[in-house]
């Protein structure tokens, strides 16, 4: 920030939207729009050239969308904070964006009222989101915490044991697993025995239950 003025670049592929956002930000004396772009690639080059404090960016854009651009900006260690602006009201979009390094998330239909506050918040290093989005985030964290014990136990297994567990849960037989991991079916049974000793998984249904709890089958 220079002289207490927040320098912002606007990135959106709709000119009318950009003009509108500029008009909204124009009523805040401490915010200055220093650049505009229409896709993720432009956002990255503008960020390098202008060194802004905040990048207000649309999520769905033709060439390189907001999520990809956010990831790239984070990787470039750009100083600017990213505030994602989107038409999507679904909170589910939020989590991957935060993981990618975004500092805020604002639905466009609320931007006329909240944009100025949101820009100020992220410029000061806070994370900005609407309460409903915060709830989605909390739910996601809760779900991860629910089976934290199981996950720790899984991470303590050796890589081979982890693989065997995964394949058993997916319904492969010992010979098939042996073929996949280049070990004999007998060795697979030995690993299963160890998994049983460490985690108490005896039957295939136990394996499936365990794998479902820690989301092992989700990808």
């Amino acid at each position, binding site marked *: 920030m220079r002289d207490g003025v927040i320098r912002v670049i606007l990135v959106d592929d*709709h000119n*009318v*939207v950009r*003009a*509108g*956002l500029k*008009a*909204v930000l*124009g*009523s805040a004396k401490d915010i200055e729009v220093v650049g505009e772009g229409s896709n993720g690639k432009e956002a990255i080059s503008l960020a390098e050239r202008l060194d802004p404090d905040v990048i207000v960016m649309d999520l*769905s854009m033709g060439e390189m969308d907001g999520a990809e651009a956010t990831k790239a900006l984070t990787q470039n260690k750009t100083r600017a904070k990213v505030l994602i602006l989107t*038409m*999507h*009201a*679904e*909170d*589910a*979009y939020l989590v*991957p964006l935060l993981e990618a390094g975004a500092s805020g998330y604002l639905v*466009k*239909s609320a*931007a*006329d*009222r909240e944009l100025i506050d949101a820009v100020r918040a992220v410029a000061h290093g806070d994370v900005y989101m609407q309460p409903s989005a915060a*709830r*989605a985030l909390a*739910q996601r964290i809760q*779900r991860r915490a629910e089976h934290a014990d199981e996950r720790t136990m899984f991470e303590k297994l050796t890589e081979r044991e982890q693989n065997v567990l995964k394949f058993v849960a*997916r319904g492969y037989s010992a010979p098939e697993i042996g073929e996949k991991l280049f070990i004999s079916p007998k060795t697979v049974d030995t690993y299963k025995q160890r998994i049983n000793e460490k985690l108490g998984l005896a039957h295939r249904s136990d394996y*499936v239950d365990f*794998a*479902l709890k820690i*989301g092992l*089958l*989700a*990808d």
Partner: protein
Amino acid sequence: MTVLRHIPGSGPERVRAKGERRLPFWLRSLLGVSLEIKLLGANLIILGVAVLVLVAPARFLPGPSTDAYVVVAALIVGAIANLALVRVALRPINQLERVAKLVSEGRLAERVPTSIVADRELSHLSRTINEMLDSLAAGRDRMRKLGAEVVFAEERERAQVARELHDSVGQTLAAATFQIAALAHEIGNHPASPRLAGVRELLRTAIEEIRNVSRSLHPRVATDLGLPTALEALGDATQQRSLVDVQVNVDIAGVVIPAALSATLYRVAQEALRNVERHADAGRAVVTLRARPGYVELEVNDDGRGFDGPLEKKRGESGLAAMKERLSLAGGELHIDTAGDRGTRVIAWVGMDTEAA
């Protein structure tokens, strides 16, 4: 439009059985003659032998009644030979009948086995029937693929319209609210301010309506974020609204579910959960997504009140009836298992031609 190609393996070469080739040509031709010739031949041979025995100059069987024995013996042998030939000749017909019955029960993969004793006409008939069954199976397969193509093309079309509405019209309206907000700030406390605020409210309502139309046209969240994430978000949202404890299990083992199919299955889950929420009075619902190379399956279970009677007539299930129709066009199935006291189980199954990633 695709050009219909020749289906490999549907020609007559497929119909010929292995055993047939091992026999010498003359024997095959002999066995292949028609039943009349076979009967005539057998009887002529027997008659010939009998005549030879009767007129042979050196009688090796003495006694006056020998002639009568020979005639009786010839008649008995003749009757047995005729019976045997007719029986053997009719066997292929029985097989034809069996296959026709199996096919009519829906087992389209059944084919008439070739028989070495069948005469030419019968072999020809079996072959023709097998060819007909081959082309019938191929036709059905094409219909199924075409049906799926139609359903998914429609899904893509809807997605396109939804996107256009949401992104173009919605964004323009949003831009208008931004300008109004800036204008309201500029004019400050002006007599026109309340009317300006009214216009802003109207635009906000319009944006909301566009969003709802777009969402009911196409569940974009399923194609943007992938079916597993979308289902989890749907489960969370349902739980939030309804106090039903919704659990979502995903077991897709690396299989990639095509976007159009994701949208269709998402809607099945949406409809099923909506019914749970509205009618089932359930405490708990479990959504399970399972995929393996070749198929994907979605199951929604609840522990609430079930329902009886045909699907279409019952409360909100008309949405599921429509989904059932779409799924069957896409080569899939939708089953609803329900009763008054043990909740409802909705299972959607769709086959697909993708491989594990």
